[in-house]
């Protein structure tokens, strides 16, 4: 590899931001001033290239400090990591939160996705744009995961340190305030506000949210924290996997793969090291359960990751957190530091001679990075494009090593499995969908938020709990990749098998209610825009298909009946090819919600 760099130099700020992450450069090969030794001795090579995974944190460091990534800054980062500038440019331009063009230090992300759109995001954007001048860059954002408080906005002001302010539910005035003075914006309401059931007995996964101080490890331990890890050490790795298998736990991220089987498959791989990855890149529109867990009970995730790593023989865990969750980031950084200081992470966890540590990696605005193999590429410092499977992650995952990757909610379910035992856990829910489940209820309800119910409750029961409003027209299950059901289908049992039987999906647990005031075609258009924006572009069916889908929906936004029939037929053909031929789940599901709206709701009739 013969690297070529241009003449652009980093500013002092940019250099400082990179050096704060990587330390000062050791030689001119890495960007320091040239010494005599550098003329005789080429440094770098494999050792430097092994740090490729620091590319994304490096881009964050620059973007956080300056607000955008200049040529000089990118070149300097590339020099430090021995990464070809073309590749780094490809990575930087992949993520929505980065800019390679100059922009103001403050960026205001205004959510225009489903729940926020129904709550008036379009007028909000127009109002904000009229009030804010050139000093703030306003970006229409996909779902910010704040659906219970729609409409939402997130202000990020670059500097040292970077400042963020979340405003939700927001108004033009409050959003402008958050953007112009993020430091003095009112503090976010506590995470428990997103849990209407908070504090009520009978909760399993949410029992500590709103009850414990999320910053206090002692409080966590006083409320049953770290009993599951002790139990895990008693059982041994094989025993933990047996318990998890017997519990019937399946993945909560949307794919519903049996967790015990995944763990067993990883644990039994002869290749080492093994890695654990926690997928906290929660980006499915309408989903905010993982955020609430991470903000309200962060130590639970730290403990659950430790258990999972112990069971699968991993000593290093990566927590890939979506970039739009500043409070979850702070809470988890604090929790990991505390756990490390108290011997609950590190070389000798709980004095058991087992070493494990967690590193947080921030996403940078890419829904596709929630796809498990795209997430690996993102961590490794490549473009977040899905890999083709096989090989599967349990065999060749992160850094090409056996990797177990689980969603946040899946992992925290492991704690009650160990504390109450597999049989008691499996007794919750139905035979095929065991345990408690978190549902993200938003839209046309009185009390939006995260609800914990045992599998098997019906959609109607859940909506009643959340106080569904009059005039319900449709419910979106599973988010943009899920499907709509009608207001007269509230008897659908909320289980994997029940929703499958009803021809829909549970997905990640999104339950978004829409009343008859929401124009359905606009909603579908927003879903299509979402997939067009978030397609990584790797495969043709998704890259072009999502564009053609959006174009067709745009044409028929005001049409019905025979006038829409041709385009609906076209949509079906494109949708079928996307489902059959796309590389990953994004393209394969990009047509689901639109199809269900046409077939079940009779949109465009």
């Amino acid at each position, binding site marked *: 590899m013969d690297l070529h760099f241009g003449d652009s130099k980093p500013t002092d700020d940019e250099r400082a931001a990179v050096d704060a992450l990587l330390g000062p450069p050791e030689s001119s090969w890495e960007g320091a001033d040239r010494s005599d030794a550098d003329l005789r001795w080429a440094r770098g090579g494999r050792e430097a290239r092994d740090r490729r995974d620091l590319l994304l944190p490096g881009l964050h460091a620059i973007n956080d400090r300056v607000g955008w990534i200049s040529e000089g800054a990118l070149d300097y980062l590339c020099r430090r990591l021995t990464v070809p500038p*073309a590749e780094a440019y490809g990575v930087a331009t992949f993520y929505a939160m980065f800019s390679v063009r100059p922009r103001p230090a403050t960026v205001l992300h205004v959510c225009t996705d489903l729940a926020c759109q129904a709550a008036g995001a379009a007028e909000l954007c127009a109002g904000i744009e009229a009030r804010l001048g050139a000093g703030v860059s306003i970006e229409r954002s996909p779902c910010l995961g704040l659906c219970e408080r729609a409409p939402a906005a997130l202000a990020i002001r670059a500097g040292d340190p970077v400042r963020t302010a979340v405003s939700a539910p927001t108004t033009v005035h409050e959003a402008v305030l958050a953007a112009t003075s993020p430091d003095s914006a009112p503090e976010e309401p506590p995470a428990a506000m997103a849990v209407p059931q908070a504090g009520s007995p009978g909760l399993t996964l949410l029992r500590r949210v709103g009850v414990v101080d999320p910053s206090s490890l002692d409080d966590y331990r006083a409320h049953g924290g770290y009993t599951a890890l002790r139990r895990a050490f008693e059982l041994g790795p094989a025993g933990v996997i047996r318990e998890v298998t017997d519990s019937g736990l399946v993945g909560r991220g949307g794919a519903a793969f049996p967790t015990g089987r995944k763990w067993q498959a990883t644990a039994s791989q002869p290749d080492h090291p093994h890695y654990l990855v926690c997928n906290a890149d929660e980006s499915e529109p309408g989903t905010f359960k993982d955020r609430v867990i991470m903000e309200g009970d962060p130590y639970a995730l730290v403990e659950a990751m430790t258990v999972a790593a112990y069971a699968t023989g991993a000593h290093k865990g990566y927590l890939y957190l979506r970039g739009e969750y500043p409070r979850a980031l702070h809470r988890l950084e604090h929790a990991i530091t505390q756990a490390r200081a108290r011997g609950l992470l590190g070389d000798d966890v709980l004095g058991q001679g087992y070493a494990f540590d967690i590193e947080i990696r921030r996403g940078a605005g890419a829904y596709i990075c929630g796809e498990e193999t795209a997430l690996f590429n993102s961590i490794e410092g490549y473009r977040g494009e899905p890999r083709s499977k096989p090989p599967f992650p349990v065999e060749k995952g992160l850094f090409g090593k056996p990797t177990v990757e689980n969603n946040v909610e899946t992992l925290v379910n492991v704690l009650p499995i160990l504390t109450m035992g597999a049989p008691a856990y499996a007794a919750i829910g139905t035979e095929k969908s065991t345990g408690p489940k978190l549902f993200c209820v938003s839209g046309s309800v009185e009390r939006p938020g995260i609800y914990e119910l045992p599998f098997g409750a019906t959609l109607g029961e859940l909506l009643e709990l959340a106080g569904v409003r009059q005039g319900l027209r449709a419910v979106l299950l599973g988010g943009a990749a899920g499907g709509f059901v009608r207001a007269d289908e509230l008897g659908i049992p909320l289980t994997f098998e029940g929703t499958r039987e009803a021809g829909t999906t549970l997905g990640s647990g999104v339950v978004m209610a829409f009343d008859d005031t929401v124009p359905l075609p606009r909603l579908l258009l927003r879903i299509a825009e979402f997939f067009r924006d978030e397609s990584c572009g790797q*495969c043709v069916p998704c890259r072009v298909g999502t564009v053609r889908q959006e174009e067709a929906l745009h044409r028929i936004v005001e049409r019905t009946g025979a006038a829409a029939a041709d385009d609906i037929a076209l949509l079906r053909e494109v949708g079928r090819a996307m489902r059959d031929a796309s590389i990953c789940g994004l393209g394969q599901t990009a047509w689901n919600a639109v199809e269900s709206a046409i077939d079940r709701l009779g949109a465009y009739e």
Partner: protein
Amino acid sequence: MTAIPLGVPRRLVEFTIDGEEARVPEGSTVLDACRAAGKDIPTLCQGDTLTPKNACRVCMVEVEGSRTLVPACSRRAEPGMAVHTDTERARHSRKLVLELLASSVDLSTTPQVAGWIKEYEAKPDRFGPDAARLGEEPKVDNDLYVRDYDKCILCYKCVDACGEQWQNTFAISVAGRGFDARIAVEHDAPLTDSACVYCGNCIEVCPTGALSFKSEFDMRAAGTWDESQQTETTTVCAYCGVGCNLTLHVQDNEIVKVTSPHDNPVTHGNLCIKGRFGYQHVQNRD
């Protein structure tokens, strides 16, 4: 990659293609097996000298038990697999891929694609006159080759050839995302400001003519490019001792472009700037 088989004989994998028994060495792809069985499956992003990227999805086939179609170019044959290459479902996906590409990309110089479009009855026009296209202008920023990204199907082959699979120069990458993704050097700069070493190995693997010799580009623009009037002569490069094979494409007694045979066991179709572009001295007639 072409290699002379020297190792332990590989086990044979037995499975069926369209109901017929197929036996291929372990590690072969479904595409290898289909081609060995004389079945034609269209491919665009697949390259004989590159690891399959399976990005274009035109080679999709149906495998019993698989939820989705599978790319023949990269899926390895497994014992007992039942592959169907010509089902309605597979043909539908191929047709749609061809339509999606032809409605957004200039495929006028892509070999074979016109035949496939006819065979699969693809109608790219049905997305309407306003269907988004790439809308790129040719980038002519050096004397050796032209990058006409309006013809780019984003197969990643040039990136792979420039990067770790062959040249290790890493001058280009995919930049941007989704429909806006394009092949670019850093900061979308001209090639002359990049790490490009002008080996032209990206041109060698480009399946659509998006990358072409400046000589070919100019002749096409002038309307003088005529492949039926060209001869191809394979010879040995005279520059250094490696002995790379060159195939000289000659029209009207002028070399108009240089390729290299992919089955050469040493170079696999790769050349350096001298072999690829340094042919002017051959036709210096003064």
